[in-house]
């Protein structure tokens, strides 16, 4: 055997698909058991979004199943997980196999908007259920809305209005975006830019950074600084945001106080990685924070130790809450009906009020948008932090009916009909 190009490509392709397939169950023979609900948790198990979703999301889903009491009614629930490596092609392959061969009824989580949009189509075609927690793009309840999908935790419109609004109110009228070059970054930049313009601000420019794989943001930060914008909007997430903020501090981008950094999507795990020394003063928006109130603290306690020693992110909390609500709907309509039509199960979820320890009382709109309050936080100074993972102070709360895009403005076909 010689090392030629063909064998290299074969080896590389094989190596690339191996990690994705390793998470799949090989048990198609008993895939159709009538009283068994199968849940597939699809997310990033190995890359930059692992800590904020990853195996922690699966742990949250298992807790939801346990607390829903559905198993006491004779219903069996099976959970599998897989790694989509943040790649739409890998994610689509997994979802197809899950739905077509393994009898999966519900796909949960799916951060990385490009993968989420692909999953959204596949689940709709096969009339199953998609409970999205991890992805941000507001298109999931807009142009791409589906009767089979619920978008639970947060979206780009919400982030733009909450974090963007806070920056504009503080005097940041001119903006420059550093944007991750894929569906999520584009949606976040679009929604943020629209919001800034609607408030009378202006957009001086943007730069699109390759995703995934960019580690050095210094050149992009320099370009942003040279635009003389008052606000540098980071339309990226996870490891990209961490490196951007870290390197902005290294290059003293905000020195002189003229330029401010706006992390449009910052998770608690990002703040932990950055450390308060670097992250202090950062303004960010989340719909869940583990230390928000007694109920969120109780939830965190029940969840137990998380992989990698992290505290739950809002994405993991969303996985818990959405599966808990789905199980309520299943208990209400029966397993057979819920399995027969994903759209019916989602319709039942929309008809029932939601209530859980993470997001409080809430409702689900016709376009699939879950409504709950959005919180504006500021990252504490090191001296203010009293213990491990004590990172945020609450600046303000946007009530549920104002936190998300008005239902008529998203262009969702379900609403018009």
């Amino acid at each position: 055997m010689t090392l030629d190009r063909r064998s290299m490509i074969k080896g590389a392709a094989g190596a690339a698909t191996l990690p994705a397939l390793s998470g799949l169950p090989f048990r198609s023979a008993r895939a159709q058991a009538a009283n068994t609900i199968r849940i597939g948790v699809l997310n990033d198990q190995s890359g930059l979004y692992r800590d904020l979703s990853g195996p922690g999301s699966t742990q949250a889903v298992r807790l939801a199943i346990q607390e829903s009491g559905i198993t006491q009614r004779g219903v069996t629930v099976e959970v599998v997980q897989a790694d989509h490596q943040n790649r739409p092609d890998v994610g689509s392959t997994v979802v197809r196999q899950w739905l077509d061969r393994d009898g999966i009824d519900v796909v949960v989580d799916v951060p990385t908007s490009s993968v989420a949009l692909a999953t959204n189509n596949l689940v709709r075609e096969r009339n199953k259920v998609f409970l999205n927690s991890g992805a941000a793009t507001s298109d999931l309840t807009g142009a791409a809305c589906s009767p089979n999908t619920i978008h639970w935790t947060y979206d780009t419109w919400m982030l733009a209005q909450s974090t963007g609004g806070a920056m504009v109110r503080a005097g940041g009228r001119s903006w420059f975006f550093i944007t991750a070059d894929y569906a999520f970054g584009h949606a976040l930049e679009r929604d943020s830019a629209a919001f800034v313009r609607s408030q009378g601000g202006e957009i001086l420019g943007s730069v699109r950074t390759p995703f995934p794989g960019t580690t050095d943001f210094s050149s992009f930060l320099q370009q942003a600084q040279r635009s003389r914008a008052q606000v540098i909007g980071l339309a990226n997430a996870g490891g990209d945001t961490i490196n951007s903020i870290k390197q902005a501090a290294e290059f003293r981008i905000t020195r002189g106080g003229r330029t401010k950094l706006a992390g449009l999507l910052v998770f608690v795990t990002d703040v932990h990685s950055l450390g308060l020394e670097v992250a202090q003063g950062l303004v960010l928006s989340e719909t869940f924070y583990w230390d928000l109130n007694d109920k969120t603290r109780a939830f965190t306690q029940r969840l137990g130790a998380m992989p990698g020693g992290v505290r739950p992110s809002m994405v993991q909390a969303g996985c818990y809450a959405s599966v808990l609500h789905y199980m309520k709907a299943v208990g209400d309509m029966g397993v057979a009906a819920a399995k027969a039509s994903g759209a019916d199960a989602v319709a039942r979820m929309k008809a029932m009020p939601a209530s859980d320890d993470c997001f409080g009382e809430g409702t689900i709109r016709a376009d699939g948008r879950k409504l709950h309050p959005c919180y504006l936080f500021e990252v504490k100074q090191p001296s203010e932090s009293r213990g491990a993972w004590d990172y945020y102070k609450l600046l303000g709360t946007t009530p549920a009916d104002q936190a998300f895009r008005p239902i008529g403005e998203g262009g969702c076909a379900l609403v018009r009909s």
Partner: protein
Amino acid sequence: MEDLLFELQLVMPQVILGVINGAFYALLSLGLAVIFGMLNVINFSHGAQFTLGAFVAWMMLAYLGIGYWPALLLAPLVVGALGILMERTMIARLYKLDHLYGLLLTFGCALVIEGLLRNGFGSSGQRYAPPPEFAAFDLELGDFFLPGYRVWVLIAASLMCLVTWLVIEKTKVGSYLRAATERPQLVQAFGINVPLMMTLTYGAGVALAAFAGVLAAPVYSVSPAMGANFIITVFAVVVIGGMGSIMGSIVTGFMLGLVQGITEVVYPEASQTVVFLIMAVVLLTRPAGLFGRA
């Protein structure tokens, strides 16, 4: 003339930042080239060993209180020793087989190393603050601020490249090494312990990766994926420079950093792709690479 000065002011920072990133490429591809030249092994765990270097430095600081300067020496030694262990127990068994087996083995090792780090420390990354003494070397050129630490990265990486090149090209050990690369049996017949030399070469190549990892720790987030992000580009650098060419990998490393830095301004979306575009062109026109012998 003033226009030209203005243009220069715009481009200079990008050129400097590009060359600094190129220093990382050069260091990493140098280690790869040394290993491939001597062992004929395509070391796919190079990225993971780079990551390991950063993690060992971080662990030394977090658990043992060992600072940056000792870590710069100790971490490469520790990771290099691990590399030697890996060579003795696994890689040495594959020398008689095709390249592909070494590639698959080291790729598997990389997945194991990264997986262990992910399970132990999560994916978000650990923080490693740059040593404060570098603040004195911060440069401020108008709008452009260059942290002293990045200047140090450039100096340290260039020095290490130079030293490695001198050792291989100008010393007696280097001449044995080069001879053993060409005719291992003949060199062994002269009484030189070639297997030992191969082991040490692998250890040295791995130590180079770990050295780059320690240099990178204060710049990037110390995360299990930090090497994987680099290694793809670095392999392109090695292919462009010519497999096994020491000078080729150094020059190409710096050059591609520069090209990438400029692309980040001109057409940022393509700043990752541009390297592979160059690789494709080089493979079509000079299949042995810019500095390789056909």
